[in-house]
């Protein structure tokens, strides 16, 4: 393995507080070191360029059965959109549901090194891990979906937090999962009965528990265990006009709950794709932005974080464990629809969707995403995502960065809309002059997500001793380009990407792959005979698979990198 010195770059590293200073960075044995420690390594001239840690994506649907059904269901997504292979890489296919190789390479070209797969159905965890293995370069963690899990619904209904914690630890171990993901709490289970939970107080049929009790119980469980990431919630009532009230109700559940972990995380609730949850109005006709109301609350409460889920105005494929929402979407656009129930655990639906810039609602959604990021006071708690591929493909992150960094870029687009006057009236975006800095972009794309997921000692930072994941962008902070397109171009294809000290991208071309890792959380808890009995009983009675076949086998795991958590005290 070669050693490197990256010389004269403008370094942005929010986790160590470096704000664009010229600094040399050393890479030795795959780790970041003082530049002076590198003897005889190769020199990379980064003068006039921006140096950041490798990107960290906190919420992306990049691997797993849902993504794969999307691929199977949408052959047209690949039509005229494939890249032929270059050198020793593989063919890349697809746009909104790219092939595993396309996913890994495209993230590497954008300078990313860590992805958090946002929804792993526990029963299908082996498939998720097989796709993780086949996605090159980037390290991946996956969160099992738990907000509608029968065990948890019962434990939380009876306020058996210790049992719930023991079960959660068992499930993370069985699925080699990373943290607790909660999707439409209770609503997806209700969908099995043809119903939904649209407020946090709608009881779940049969289980007689409310979404509020589920979210609160899961937050407490998360802190009882001391997991690296906080509870990761996709709240109820996604995508409906007026849903910001449900969002605020959900966020308020975090009041009074304190973080308990040894990973440097200081939030207890992460609201994912907040854009889909910040809608005002009562119908699609009077639909408007609720971003201000939501952000006033988020800015004032520092134990919550969010990622945006920017709408990128593309043709994409929506996929979520929120089964009822996907049914609803299918009835709106009449396109093809896949839906599945995952016994005892969750569900999922998939519908292609076209965010058309000639449709007022889509443009307002686009504006709401940008407003959330521009209203945010602390970008360590505001992360850049497109909820890939729900609001747009991840390959559009550079375009989102362009809109965030350039008022001209977003105004030009805003004024080109067919219904621009109506869109301007329903949003605040036009009046916003703020242009984010490279430091804030670094917070949104690496430092913030890494801290929120409790992995900042491994990812998202240029601290000495961390893995040498580095992105060097061809953009000069002292001479920011006048043409916003150049911002998008610089973030689309790095000058260099390093992964674990290996140069994987040079001038926007993938030149090498490197061993990649599966990150998971290994939680030790006290023996719990009740939970063990419950697990055996449920598997004997309800599951269609045997307990011994349910767990992810060791051979499914690719290069495991376990985060140890001791919750035995």
């Amino acid at each position, binding site marked *: 393995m070669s050693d490197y010195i990256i010389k004269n770059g403008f370094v942005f590293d929010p986790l160590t507080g470096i704000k664009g200073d010229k600094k040399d960075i050393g890479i030795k044995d795959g780790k970041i070191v003082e530049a002076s420690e590198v003897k005889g390594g190769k020199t990379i001239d980064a003068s006039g360029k921006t140096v950041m840690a490798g990107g960290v994506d906190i919420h992306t649907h990049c691997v797993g059965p849902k993504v794969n059904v999307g691929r199977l269901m*949408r*052959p*047209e*997504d690949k039509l005229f959109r494939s890249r032929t292979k270059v050198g020793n890489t593989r063919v890349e296919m697809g746009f909104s549901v790219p092939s595993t190789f396309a996913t890994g390479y495209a993230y590497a070209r954008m300078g990313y090194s860590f992805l958090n797969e946002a929804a792993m159905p526990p029963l299908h965890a082996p498939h998720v891990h097989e796709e993780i293995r086949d996605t090159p370069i980037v390290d991946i963690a996956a969160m099992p979906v738990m907000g509608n899990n029968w065990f948890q619904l019962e434990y939380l209904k009876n306020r058996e937090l210790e049992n719930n914690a023991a079960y959660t630890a068992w499930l993370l171990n069985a699925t080699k999962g990373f943290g607790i993901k909660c999707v439409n709490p209770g609503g997806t289970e209700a969908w099995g009965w043809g119903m939904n939970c649209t407020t946090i107080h709608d009881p779940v049929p049969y289980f007689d528990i409310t979404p509020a009790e589920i979210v609160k119980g899961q937050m407490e469980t998360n802190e009882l265990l001391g997991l690296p990431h906080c509870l990761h919630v996709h709240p109820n009532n996604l995508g409906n006009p007026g849903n910001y009230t449900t969002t605020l109700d959900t966020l308020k559940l975090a009041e009074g709950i304190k973080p308990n972990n040894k990973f440097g995380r200081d939030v207890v609730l992460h609201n994912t794709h907040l854009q889909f949850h910040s809608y005002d109005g009562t119908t699609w006709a009077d639909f408007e932005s609720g971003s201000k109301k939501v952000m006033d609350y988020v800015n004032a409460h520092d134990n919550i974080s969010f990622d945006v889920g920017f709408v990128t105005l593309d043709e994409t494929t929506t996929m979520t464990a929120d089964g009822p929402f996907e049914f609803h979407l299918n009835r709106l656009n*009449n*396109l093809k629809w896949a839906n599945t129930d995952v016994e005892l655990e969750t569900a999922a639906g998939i519908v*292609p969707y076209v965010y058309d810039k000639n449709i007022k609602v889509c443009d307002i959604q686009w504006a709401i995403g940008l407003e959330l990021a521009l209203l945010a006071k602390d970008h360590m708690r505001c992360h850049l995502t497109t909820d890939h591929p729900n609001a747009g493909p991840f390959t559009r992150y550079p375009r989102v960065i362009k809109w965030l960094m350039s008022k001209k870029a977003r105004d030009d687009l805003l004024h080109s809309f067919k219904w621009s006057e109506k869109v301007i009236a329903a949003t605040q975006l036009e009046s916003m002059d703020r242009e984010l800095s490279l430091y804030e972009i670094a917070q949104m794309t690496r430092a913030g997500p890494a801290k929120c997921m409790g992995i900042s000692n491994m990812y998202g930072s240029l601290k000495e001793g961390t893995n040498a994941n580095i992105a060097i962008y061809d953009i000069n902070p002292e001479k920011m380009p006048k043409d916003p397109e150049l911002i998008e171009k610089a973030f689309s294809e790095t000058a260099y990407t390093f992964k674990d000290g290996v140069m994987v991208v040079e001038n926007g071309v993938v030149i090498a792959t490197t061993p990649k890792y599966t990150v998971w959380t290994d939680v030790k808890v006290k023996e719990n005979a009740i939970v063990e009995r419950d697990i055996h009983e449920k598997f004997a009675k309800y599951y269609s698979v045997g307990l011994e076949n349910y767990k992810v086998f060791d051979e499914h795991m690719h290069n495991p990198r376990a985060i140890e958590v001791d919750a035995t005290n």
Partner: protein
Amino acid sequence: MSTVTLTAKGTHELYLEAYNVTPDAFAGKTADEIAGLECHEGNRKGKLGEYFDIDGNGGETAADTQIIVKGNCKKIKRIGQQMTAGEIIVESDCDMYTAGWMKGGKVTVKGNVDSFCGIGMAGGEFIVEGNAQNYLGSAYRGDWRGMTGGLIHVKGNAGNDVATFMRGGKIIIDGDAFLHVCTHGEGGTVVIKGNVESRVGGQMVKGDIYVYGQIKYMMPGFKYVDDVEAEAVEGEKLTFAHYIGDLGERHSKRKGEIIYGNIYLKK
């Protein structure tokens, strides 16, 4: 207008993917440059010059470029794919995807064409003097946006799955078609002057199908409403029995009236 004449040498052992045989790709190029354009024989990348004798230079733009293809093209796919202007005349049979995703201009095939020809067409004219196989003027696999504009005229017969997911434009078939015409149709017009076996207009929500001969088995989702006089092809005013459907599907409303798919069967 400049004419480029290609003569197939017959040197390809596998099917040849000639996606660069379009006025768009030839425009502004000399015969030598055209010979250097890429094509695929199976998974092997090749150059047009290896498979065709090329005579004449391209015009300044696609619109002033005419391509005449001679020799046996029975195993050559994708001629005229994605072309936007200009003209192509193929003097023999052609393989799949001829005139696929065409946006403008004119393609004439003097022989027969295989399947998936005129797929995803958005504009222009595509004339087949012989027969067409399956999926004529249909949508790409999985896509809900089939033909949106332009004209396809097949002077012989067509196979199955004509005009799947059609949204606009016109297809005229002088002979017969077999199963599945305009399945999932959302607009456009199909005229079949011969007979059709069955499954005409299945899951159709909008659009018009004219059949001059017989439909052997009518879909149960269609209902006879009245007799109408109509001109399916210019200058041919005829009386048709008018059916609406597919009644099992969603139908939008315009000005209070429900929009149906229509089948017109010649009396």
